[in-house]
């Protein structure tokens, strides 16, 4: 079974020999400093060049043992398209929003986004996906898009935005609908370029921030719009949400993604018990990966496999100083699991 067939089968609820072990990309990428220093393919340069981004994605794939090729390497591409100012970071520090484009949802213009993909970093990402998927036809390329709440909170000042979810509902919904359109379009273009699956990473759509009512009203609604649009384009989609989800637990079953990835504070085996239909992904603690022994990392991975977690992956963004041998301890152990 090729890695691409295995991931695709898992995302379609089919039985596989063992769970795949992946690192989706985006804010959850495996471009650790050790890989970059050994290969000379480095960030931040690779954020802005199709050739360098493809090159780094391939080096990460070849050296870490993850069974996917994940890109891009940040979650600022869409916010930059919409006018936010980005600090591109450094070798070891991911890009971040320096200044959001708008002070309030009231200032966000309604506009056609279709022609934003032909240039800038969106074109870099799509080009890089095209390159690597042609070179590695049997490996799933996972294209990562920023989730709708995280993107909206990256283009509108987040303190104002979170208040406006309650105080300015109509316009907040308008902005959420617009950014969801843009994200869906990006996801569809990634599929067209050759991506085998889409991951929507929405750290701000956390139950801890929103609480159950707003989580349902905004996060579930707009994540599902993106999921449905991706499905309509015959793509598979994984949704990643950060933080403790206990306050929004009852809504997890309403997210129509093909797999749900969570933070390491959540017990995926318990989520499976409660929602047998959810395909789970995760959730090896990134702190363990960064500071734990190879032995403990291996046994944690094995426990997740034993618990029936469908896709094994880091629980959140990796520390860029995570040692390569610790990552290999994770990937080697999962790959060695007998059917």
């Amino acid at each position, binding site marked *: 079974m090729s890695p691409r067939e295995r991931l695709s089968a898992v995302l379609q609820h089919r039985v596989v020999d063992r769970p795949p072990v992946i690192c989706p990309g985006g804010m959850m990428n495996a471009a650790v400093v050790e890989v970059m220093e050994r290969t000379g393919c480095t960030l931040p340069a690779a954020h802005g060049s199709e050739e360098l981004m493809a090159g780094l994605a391939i080096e990460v794939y070849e050296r870490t043992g993850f069974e996917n090729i994940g890109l891009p390497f940040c979650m600022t591409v869409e916010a930059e398209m919409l006018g936010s100012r980005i600090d591109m970071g450094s070798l070891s520090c991911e890009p971040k929003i320096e200044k959001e484009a708008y002070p309030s949802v009231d200032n966000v213009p309604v506009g056609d986004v279709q022609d934003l993909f032909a240039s800038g970093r969106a074109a870099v990402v799509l080009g890089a996906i095209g390159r690597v998927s042609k070179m590695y036809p049997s490996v799933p390329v996972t294209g990562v898009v920023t989730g709708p709440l995280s993107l909206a909170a990256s283009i509108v000042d987040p303190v104002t935005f979170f208040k406006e979810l309650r105080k300015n509902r109509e316009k907040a919904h308008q902005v959420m609908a617009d950014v969801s359109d843009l994200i869906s379009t990006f996801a569809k273009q990634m599929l067209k370029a050759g991506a085998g699956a889409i991951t929507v990473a929405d750290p701000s759509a956390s139950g801890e921030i929103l609480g159950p009512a707003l989580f349902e009203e905004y996060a579930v609604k707009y994540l599902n719009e993106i999921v449905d649009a991706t499905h309509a384009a015959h793509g598979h989609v994984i949704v990643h949400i950060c933080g403790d989800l206990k306050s929004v637990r009852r809504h997890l079953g309403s997210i129509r993604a093909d797999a749900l990835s969570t933070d390491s504070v959540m017990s995926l085996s318990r989520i499976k018990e409660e929602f047998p239909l959810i395909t789970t992904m995760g959730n090896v603690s990134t702190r363990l990966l960064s500071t734990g022994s190879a032995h403990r990392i291996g046994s944690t991975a094995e426990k997740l496999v034993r618990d029936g977690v469908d896709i094994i992956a880091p629980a959140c963004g990796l*520390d860029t100083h995570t040692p390569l041998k610790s990552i290999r301890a994770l990937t080697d152990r999962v790959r060695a699991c007998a059917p």
Partner: protein
Amino acid sequence: MRDKEELFQGLSDAIVAMDEDETVRLAEAVIDDKIDPYEAIEKGLSHGMERVGRLFEEEEYFVPEILICSDAMYAGLEVLKPHIKAVGTDRTHRVVIGVIEGDTHDIGKNLVKIMLEASRFEVFDLGRDVPPVRFLEKAKEVEADLIAISTLMTTTMEDMGRVIKLLQEDGVRGKFQVMVGGGPISKRFADRIGADGYAVNAGAAAKLAKGLLGGEA
């Protein structure tokens, strides 16, 4: 003449109800009726925010609600503060707060700041992505009593310990209480790096700060 206890309760209720207009209206009534504005802040605004903090801990309120309540509190403060007569000896406790370098998530830090200000601490906000040495410099500059450091990322938590090491190297560790918090932080971690306290959320952080500085803010 309205009963002042009733006004204080009204202020507290208006904060909890996220009603900024009502908060301002009642604060103006406090001034009109020549009621002690300081008492109105303590028994009205701070009292309301304390209830908000409790609702947050009980998971009735979440981030958007706290932010809206705090807008009401700040609007009330703006009305009342200019009427407080300066008292020479009465120095409020000072806190330097910030998110450690490498992390740009500052919602949690902002909530702690709100709750500290609601408890009448004077807060100096370094913002997000703050290098460890800035905490030391700012704390010395403003003669702070407390340094509060937060992070949401496992990748940056070790640098919290750097701040404490810098304080030690500079010989000023004894001058400041240090408290830490944020998603990946635990009491055990706080103990390991030698912090004086750890709080699980913003409501608890304000209580902890009061505890560390000996009761009153």
